Structure formats: structure tokens, C-alpha cells
């Protein structure tokens, strides 16, 4: 699969007011970058539109987007599922 890092980070930066413009720390909790319940919805919607995926109900839980790393992993899994 293609490297989605650039698109993924761009998507996060659109919504997270505390994310740095040059790099994203994939281990930091997204809440520390400004994610709240409103922006979480916006981020997930944006990810779905950007990557043509749909988060199933069992992925619509906080664990999916606790960190950028976890969220990117979820996006990659859904892209792979879609491709196969």
C-alpha cells in the first residue's frame, strides 16, 4: 500500500489546533494536541472522506484514536480491507 503519512498528517492538522506544522508525534495522546469530542467526530469524518473508508461501529471507540499512531493503524487496516 502507498505511504499515507503526508495525507494523514495533513488531515490531523486541519483539526488539531495544537499539532505542530512540521511533524506529528505518533505516540502522543491526541487529546494533548487539542482533540475533544467535537474534533474527534470531525477528524474521523475527514479520514473517511480522504481515504474512502468507513469506520465500522466496533472501531468507533476512543481506543481507535487515542494516539496518531493508533489512528493511522486503523486507517491502514481499513484501506487494506477495502483493497482486498
Amino acid at each position, binding site marked *: 500500500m502507498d505511504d499515507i503519512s503526508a495525507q494523514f498528517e495533513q488531515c490531523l492538522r486541519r483539526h488539531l*489546533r*495544537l*499539532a*505542530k*506544522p512540521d*511533524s*506529528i*508525534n505518533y505516540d*502522543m495522546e491526541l487529546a*494533548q*494536541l*487539542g482533540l*475533544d*469530542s*467535537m474534533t*474527534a*467526530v470531525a477528524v*474521523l*469524518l475527514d479520514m*473517511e472522506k480522504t481515504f474512502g473508508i468507513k*469506520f465500522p*461501529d466496533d472501531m*468507533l*471507540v*476512543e481506543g481507535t484514536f487515542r494516539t496518531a499512531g493508533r489512528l493511522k493503524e486503523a486507517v491502514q487496516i481499513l484501506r487494506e480491507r477495502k483493497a482486498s
Partner: protein
Amino acid sequence: MTRALPDRSLGPEWAILELLTRGIVDDTEQQMIRDLLLTDTLNWGEVLEQSLRHKMLPMLAHQIISAGLRFDVPTSIYMHLESALEWNRCQIEVFRRETVRVAQGLASCGIHFVVTKGIAFESTLYGGLGTRYMNDIDFMIAPRDRETVMSAMQGLGFRPFFEWAKDPRREEISSRLNPDHLPKLAREIDQPGARTVQVDVANSLTWTKSPFAVPVEEALEDRVEQPVPGMPGVSISCFRPIYQFIFTVLHLFREAWLQKFVDFGTDVGLMKFGDVIRLIERNHDELADGALMQIMEAHNVTHPVAWVLRHLDETFHTHTLELLTLEKDGDEGLLRSQMQSSAYVRASGQSMRARLQSKNRGSVRPATPAHSGS
């Protein structure tokens, strides 16, 4: 305990709404609101706009009609107010019937539930006059019953409301991420003037990721039956006043404290404060006898409750903190550390009174900080 009358520093229009919020309790207040409504320079546009913003148009209409001001109010305005009150009464009739239908459906499944907020308050705190505005029916259930209730509601003809929403996927994601409620439910009805009836089923007295929690199961153990106006022999289950009070005040706290409700345009309004004032007035003996304090202390919710009551007393000249002996509680610094999320109050620095009157609350959101993380 007498209450000082509202001052007129924010204009007669706002003083009218403050009086209606508190409820008119004596001849002095009745005379004051009459005088205010008869003010020569009264800006009716402002009165109507603020009444709509605070969901108090039916209450204003009832006050004007019952005070016999038919020929003192501009005719076109009076006619619209009459219609607004009548329409609200029709809506409430629909809500009452639907509440009973849902309640009977849930009861037949063995579910413990209560009816909360508007439909519970209108027949008690507002005297069943059809003046309490509401746009949905609120139920509370225990978290363990979520699936059973969802299934029962579907059997009663309800579907998730996000199917009707402008952006259904946004609503769907939002409801999944906030498991303090079932997805908002709606049913199409064959009723002139009302396309759907909406039901909101909560399973928490607070909210998702709240630092405060009062177990729903505990509150549901303590239910009371409340008659339904116009339906002899029919009653609905409601919280006893102590839990009704805690739930209502914590709900108001959340809407007043969190920035996101300002962004949504659904933050605190006068009517919610009116609910609290009336709850206390109607049940003050039960609320002041010590049991409430014990429950609040046991669940560590004394500070948010006192914070709300402090704002209420400062805004409406009531004495609720004193009545409930909470004068020393409600520390805002402590609440900030407990809430740890974006707070409107910290950013705005407005008095609650100025905030309630403001039509542009969103403008005080703090500027986006410079990139400071990651």
C-alpha cells in the same frame, strides 16, 4: 425569603424575561411585569427575539394573555403569541401521549426508567399550563439496558434520528462516540404541524468522560409516579426530587461550562435556570433536609452544583446557596482542575447575566494558541 426584583440596567425587555424565568410569585412581581410590558418604549422585536432564543415564547404569551393585555400589545404580535401558545399546547399533548406509549412499551419489557426534563417538568413545575417549551421527550435508563431499550424502541416504530439529519454520518459517529445516550430516536407521526416525534434516551446523569458520576441505578431505585394531565389514572415514572435536582443542575453545569456547547449554539439559556429555580421552590423541604447533601458528597458533585447555584443566585437574586447550605462550595479553580477540558467560562470572563443576554457568545472563544504540542 423575598427576592429582589430584577434591575432594569439591561433594559425592560430583559427584565421581563428574568421575571418570567423566576416565575411570578406575588403581587409585586405581577405588577412589575405588567408595568414592564406596558413600557411605552418597549422594543417588541427584542422581547420576541430573546424569548425565542431562550425558548420562552409560550411563557411570554401566557403571561400577556392571562394578564388581560389584549389591547395593550400590538395586535399582530398578540395574535402570533396566541398562536405560539396554542401550538405549544398541541405539541405537549402529542408529547404526553407519546411519552405514555413509550413508557408502557418499556415497562412491558421490564425496563426500569424515568421520564426527565421537559415532559416531567411541564405538568409539575409549570402547572400543566402548556407554557414549558420542549422539542423532544427525555428518558433515562440504566446502561445495562441500552440494547433492550434500543430494540424495544425500534419495536415502537422509532429509528435513529440521524437518518433524517443533514449529515447523517456525522450524527452517527457522534452518537457512537458518546455512549451516555442512545442515538437520538424519532418516529414519523400523522399529526398536523409535527412531522416526527423525537425521543432522547440517556443512560448517565452526567456525560461521557465526565469527572463526575452519580450511578443511574441508584437514582432509578428512587422513582416516583407522576400523573399525566388530561389522562386520568395514567402516570409516568420520574426521579424523586433529589435526583431530579442533581441531574438538572449537572446538565446545566455541563452546558454552561463547556466551550463545545457554545460552538454548537446549544449552551445554557434562561429556561434551564427557570427549571432549577422552580425545582427548588417546589421541593425545598426535601432538598434542604440533609439527604441531598449526603448524596452530593458521596458522589463528589457538590462543587459543580454549588457553582451553578452561585451563578443562579447572582443572576436572579435567589438564595439557593444559603437554603442548601452550599455557600462555601463551588470553587471554580477546583472545578477547572477537575474538568480539564475546554472551558467557556474561563475564556469569557462575563457574568452569567451578561452571557445569557448576549446574542454572540461564540465570539469570546480564545484565540487559537500558537503551535505548542507534538
